[in-house]
């Protein structure tokens, strides 16, 4: 019996060696700091899918002293600020050379100190609040920021719907919602429009009253940068109540949940996003095709994507985030945290969501967003235009 146990233990010890094989010079850990539960769990999972897909395509990185295998280390921050520090620390202790995430700005900010103290570079993928990178020298970000997105959407509302009156609906206590609504309001008013705004508490499921308020206020467009959980409620209830005011939203609404809700109704739903599935550039088209195949081949992954193969923008961003991390490893020619931190600001990458160059505060320089509209017959997104701030 003892012999058997010893043999077993010896085999266990050998396992990693066998798995690693001989062709690798070593292993580099990339941490995934994303929510898999809590209010942002769904979005976090989709973002994580993009990262895993990228890893599936590029599982290794070649440095001057050999090819390194990339190991992904995932941790669930539960969308909760008080769970964030231990979650972040898990990644640091797992030896992550670089960290990707998170979906949701609050948890990113709460983890920044931990990453900073450990000297780990973190790449924010879709956390759009300006506060994530300000004052956190090691936090970078590849998406655009709320002020930009708010302005883009305000411009779009004025250009496309010639709206003069808007109504904003945000979730109380959600900095993403509230921030985006704030910047939208600023921009919209700056252009001579009029804005009414309301917030609803977490757990709200009855939006009829809010929608009625929008009608009563004479709004020509409703801007509701909420999470997807509320999005489908808002759409279906607007449809049920015969409210036909066009609805605008930010990147969170770029999700199949919204298409499901809008399908078969006569609602006009438009979103600004980082990425368009119908983008014809070859990189984007390849990504969409490959990603869908990969999803359909893995039922688990498909379930995490909400049970269908519609490509969420955050998945594309997740993909780009991973690729940026690889570029950083290559440029630093090392998996060491300090080496990466030194060169991070100089990393550039031409991703599926566009060119990524880091500018002020470590934020990617982005000057345009994709606007998409839901097609309620086919249940798919339709590309409308590329909107920039300057218009």
């Amino acid at each position, binding site marked *: 019996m003892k012999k058997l146990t010893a043999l077993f233990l010896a085999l266990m010890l050998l396992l990693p060696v066998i798995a690693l094989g001989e062709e690798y010079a070593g292993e580099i850990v990339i941490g995934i700091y994303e929510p898999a539960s809590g209010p942002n769990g769904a979005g976090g999972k989709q973002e994580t899918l993009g990262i895993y897909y990228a890893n599936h395509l590029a599982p290794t990185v070649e440095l001057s002293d050999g090819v390194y295998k990339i190991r992904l280390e995932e941790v669930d921050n539960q969308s909760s600020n008080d769970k964030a520090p231990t979650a972040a620390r898990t990644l640091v202790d797992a030896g992550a050379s670089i960290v990707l995430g998170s979906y949701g700005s609050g948890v990113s900010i709460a983890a920044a100190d931990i990453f900073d103290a450990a000297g780990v570079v973190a790449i924010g993928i879709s956390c759009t609040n300006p506060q994530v990178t300000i004052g956190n020298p090691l936090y970078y970000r590849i998406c655009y920021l709320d002020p930009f997105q708010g302005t883009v959407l305000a411009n779009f509302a004025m250009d496309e719907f010639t709206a003069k009156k808007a109504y904003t609906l945000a979730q109380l206590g959600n900095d993403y919602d509230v921030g985006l609504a*704030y910047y939208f309001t600023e921009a919209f008013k700056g252009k001579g429009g009029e804005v009414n705004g309301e917030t609803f508490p977490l757990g709200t499921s*009855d939006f009829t*009253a809010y929608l009625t308020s929008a009608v009563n206020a004479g709004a020509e467009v409703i801007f509701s940068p909420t999470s997807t959980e509320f999005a489908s409620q808002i759409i279906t209830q607007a449809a049920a109540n015969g409210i036909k005011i066009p609805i605008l939203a930010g990147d969170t609404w770029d999700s199949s949940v919204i298409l499901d809700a809008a399908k078969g109704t006569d609602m006009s739903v438009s979103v600004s996003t980082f990425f368009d599935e119908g983008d014809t550039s070859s990189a984007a088209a390849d990504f969409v095709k490959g990603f869908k195949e990969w999803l359909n081949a893995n039922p688990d992954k498909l379930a995490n994507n909400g049970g269908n193969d519609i490509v969420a923008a955050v998945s594309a961003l997740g993909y780009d985030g991973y690729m940026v991390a690889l570029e950083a490893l290559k440029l630093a020619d090392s998996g060491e945290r300090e080496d990466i931190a030194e060169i991070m600001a100089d990393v550039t990458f031409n991703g599926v969501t566009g060119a990524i160059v880091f500018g002020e505060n470590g934020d990617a320089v982005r000057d345009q967003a994709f606007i998409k509209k839901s097609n309620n017959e086919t249940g798919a997104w339709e590309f409308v235009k590329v909107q920039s701030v300057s218009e």
Partner: protein
Amino acid sequence: MGAEDFGPHFSKGTSMSDFISANLPYLLAGISVGGQYALIAIGYTMVYGILRLINFAHGDIFTVAAYCMVYMNATLPLYLSLPLTIILTVLLGFSVERIAYKPLRSAPRMSIMISAIGVSYLLQNLMWYITGGLAKQYPTLPFISNPVSIYTATTKMVTLVTPVLTLVLVVALVQLINHTKVGMAMRAVSKDFETSKLMGIKINKVISVTFIIGSFLAAVGSMLYFSNYTAVTPTAGAMPGLKAFVAAVFGGIGSIPGAVIGAFIIGIAENIIKALGLTSFSDAFTFALLIIILIFKPTGLFGEPQQEKV
């Protein structure tokens, strides 16, 4: 952020018809959600009447019913998925009582309430695990999901069906309690637990029946509620559950008509608050109402006073 004060819409209309068309949707939403709260509240009030237990898990049973419907409707026809959902929900309510509350019958009241909180925690986590936490779209049920126009407002059929169905179910329930043997036993147990036990009433059976009725109504309430508010998440039932409980307390816990009236009052009041533009306080308002009633009339609108024996 710049909070735009909306001002009361009640003063906005220039004429009566404007006034009505501006405010009718609030009222309709209030009545409809009130009816749905009522169906949940009955479960709370009956269980409380008998066990003196706030069944914190009731709201989660309500959510589980919604998930059952979502998953079963994907594979089964409606005439199967509908009754199956109800059966499964009732089974869940029954087993929760058997597993988590029955062993604690002689324990202090605090323990059993903590057990209820534990069940709620477990059910929510379990739903997260199974569903992955993405909001699921509730299936469209024929007839009740159809749009309908009332005066100037458009709404779903369910808004009209809810109050009617609620009243029908409540009348049926009151008949059951007043005129059947098990109903009489229920009343006896809620009046005096110990004496009823001595009189040979099968307490466990009565409690099980109570949970079965409560879960059945929660399942029906869940169908109506989620036909209106179609996103199902693991925590979707928490807030309606809590509000239904408030409604039960408001109406006088232990009293079925009280729970129903309380639920309608809360549903409508909550929507009036929203109409007044005080949206951030719509939940807070419900609790404020609760505290006010507890202070001034602790037994609720229709509750019976209880004198503590010294």
